[in-house]
């Protein structure tokens, strides 16, 4: 394996992580846009996504299905998990996020932090043997049966399922961009983000828009969770805590409030982690230290992030 191949492999692995980070970061950015809150329970909604999809995979008996039913089931499980977690996200928003969003920042901060801990502990206590790490089923296993599951290009291993993740990631970003920029609902979301009261006067149903935004953000977290489960093959009740902080950091690095910024931020974070693990001596011990140090540097020298928040003067 040449030095170039090592770098290439590390970059490819970093991109895999970047997809997951981006999906979570987008949620932070969306919520911040329509409600002006930092939703700290988002990481735990992500974790719920993993447990919901894992339960669905078991309930559907996907692993014993074959042919088109198998592929159909995979698609249904992706969509159903996203829908269920989306609805859960909306319920949480109505319960604990929106009611406190008008108060001081500390209120929403505490409320969402508390909500996150409550979700985490509920899964630990009420999911069967919830405190242990769970094996996430290898959902795509059968798609590549008979093949080696990967191809090698000058020493770099590209796994088919990872390429599939990449495709899913790109498709989701394109769909999201289309939705936000080209549809009426997307326009309404942007309007609420710019100026809620003004949007209200223009006839936008603000409460509905907030619900839709939380539905989308939470559904994306569920998608990230499925990819996470498939990539690492294990999920655990407290996996959302660190992922939540990483997602928020990615959103801030990219420019909080900017969807493309969140995506770029996700990749910046993951590649910083990967490259610091690779090139700093004993770097794998310190990769989180380096990555979060980068976040702090951004906060100091470029607080508006890479792309910068789209700030509109409020009347």
């Amino acid at each position, binding site marked *: *394996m*040449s*030095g170039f*191949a*090592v770098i290439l*492999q*590390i970059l490819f*692995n*970093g991109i*895999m*992580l970047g997809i997951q980070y981006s999906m979570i970061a987008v949620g932070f950015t969306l919520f911040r846009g329509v409600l002006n809150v930092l939703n700290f329970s988002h990481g735990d909604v992500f974790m719920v996504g993993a447990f919901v999809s894992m339960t669905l995979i078991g309930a559907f008996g996907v692993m014993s299905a074959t042919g088109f039913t198998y592929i159909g089931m995979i698609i249904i499980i992706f969509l159903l998990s996203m829908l269920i977690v989306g609805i859960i996200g909306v319920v949480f928003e109505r319960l604990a996020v929106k009611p406190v969003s008008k108060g001081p920042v500390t209120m929403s901060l505490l409320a969402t932090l508390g909500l996150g801990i409550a979700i985490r502990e509920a899964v*630990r206590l009420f999911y069967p*043997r919830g*405190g*242990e*790490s769970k*094996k996430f089923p290898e959902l795509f296993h059968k798609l590549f049966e008979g093949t080696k599951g*990967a191809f*090698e290009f000058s020493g770099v*291993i590209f*796994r088919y399922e990872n390429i599939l993740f990449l495709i899913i990631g790109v498709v989701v970003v394109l769909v999201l961009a289309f939705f936000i920029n080209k549809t009426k609902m997307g326009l309404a979301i942007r309007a609420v983000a710019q100026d809620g009261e003004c949007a209200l006067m223009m006839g936008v149903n603000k409460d509905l828009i907030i619900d839709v935004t939380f539905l989308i953000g939470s559904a994306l977290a569920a998608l990230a969770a499925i990819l996470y489960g498939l990539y*690492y*093959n*294990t999920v*655990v009740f407290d*996996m959302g805590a*660190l992922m939540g902080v990483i997602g928020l950091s990615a959103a801030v690095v990219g420019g909080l409030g900017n969807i493309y910024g969140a995506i770029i931020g996700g990749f910046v974070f993951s590649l910083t*982690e*990967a490259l610091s*693990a*690779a090139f700093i001596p*004993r770097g*794998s*011990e310190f*990769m*989180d230290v380096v990555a979060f140090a980068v976040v702090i540097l951004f906060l100091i020298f470029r607080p508006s992030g890479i792309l910068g928040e789209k700030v509109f003067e409020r009347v």
Partner: protein
Amino acid sequence: MQKSVKIITSILLLLLVVSLVSFNVGCTKKEKQVVKLGFIGPLTGKYAKMGLGGLNSFKLAVKQWNESGKNKYVYEVVSFDDEGVPQKGVEVATKACSDPEIIAVAAHYNSMVAIATTDVFHKFGVVNVVWGAVLPSITYGNDYPEVCRVNGTQVEQNEANAQLVVDKLGFKKFAIIYDTTDYGRGHLQYFKEALARRGITPIAEEGIVIDQKDFTTVLTKIKALNPEVIYFGGLTPEGVNIKLQMDKLGIKAQFLGTSGIKSDDFNNALGEHAEGVICMLDGAPVEKLPGGKEFMEAYNKAGYQEPPEAYGPFAYCAANILMRAIEKVGPDRAKVIEEVNKTDYEDIIGKIHFNEYGQNDVPLATPYVSQDGQWVPWDDSLYAKGERVLPGIAYREGKEWVNPYKKP
């Protein structure tokens, strides 16, 4: 006058008889004194399986004593959950020691927890027979008579490890991955020392943080160095992820672990990916000892939900050591400490003898290999018999390795 004396004397005699009889009845009916024993281990969280296996085994020993009829005291187990977290361990150890009814404790699976609580047991003057943590300095790093250990340490494990993979199997290029806790660093140190005695320097040393999920970068770096063996000094959760990601990256090397991955969980989580992995465990294989077979039978009969796991037999022996001491000197914390330090007898894990550090110094570690989803003692395995080839050996000879895993 004489009559009244007679009456009074007879009444007194009657009273005496009645009181003697009732005293006798009271004596035979009187319950044996209850003595509480503390058990501490990770009962929830990532290491819960190891902790519950230990607790069940501990309870089994207590149950057997209580049912034996030969016991002077009735024993009761009070269990505490350290979650495998040092702070939590100190908290529950303090709680256990603060209860004056708890005479002795068997505590900890995780080395980083056990090292954190040594001072607590010393301060309170309560004996703790460690049943699962393997970091040498838990016993060797202090002169506390309160802290003893029934299982072996990383020193013996890593020597046995090197004996197998270097002396017997002839591997020479080692990459070491360790978790950055005291436990992982201990493995790094003692495995390196064992290699150094054989004139080998590892080609890579990479530390990883526990709870980390992604090891692809570390593994990619290691892959570029073409090691014959990847040694992992750490526990099951990270071990599972490293082995899986190693296979996903197509790294052609032998995976070698320690007692940290010797759990049924490792095999269950990895399925066919576990095949051909080598690990170590202190002591002789319990299945082979005459007492071990009875232990397994009694364990299965008791109907516990979880298997005893690697350190169950040690927890079982820890309970026996504590109860033997209490039977002899009575439920007195100070005397029990003294008595436990004199431990020297045969139990299901073989001879147990505590040296001046309170460490069981019967130096023995057995290598195991994962075969069809089971940990099989190396000498009994199809790999030792030559019917199967280890992945590391096939790769070393430049051949493709065909996984011989059969679903159990």
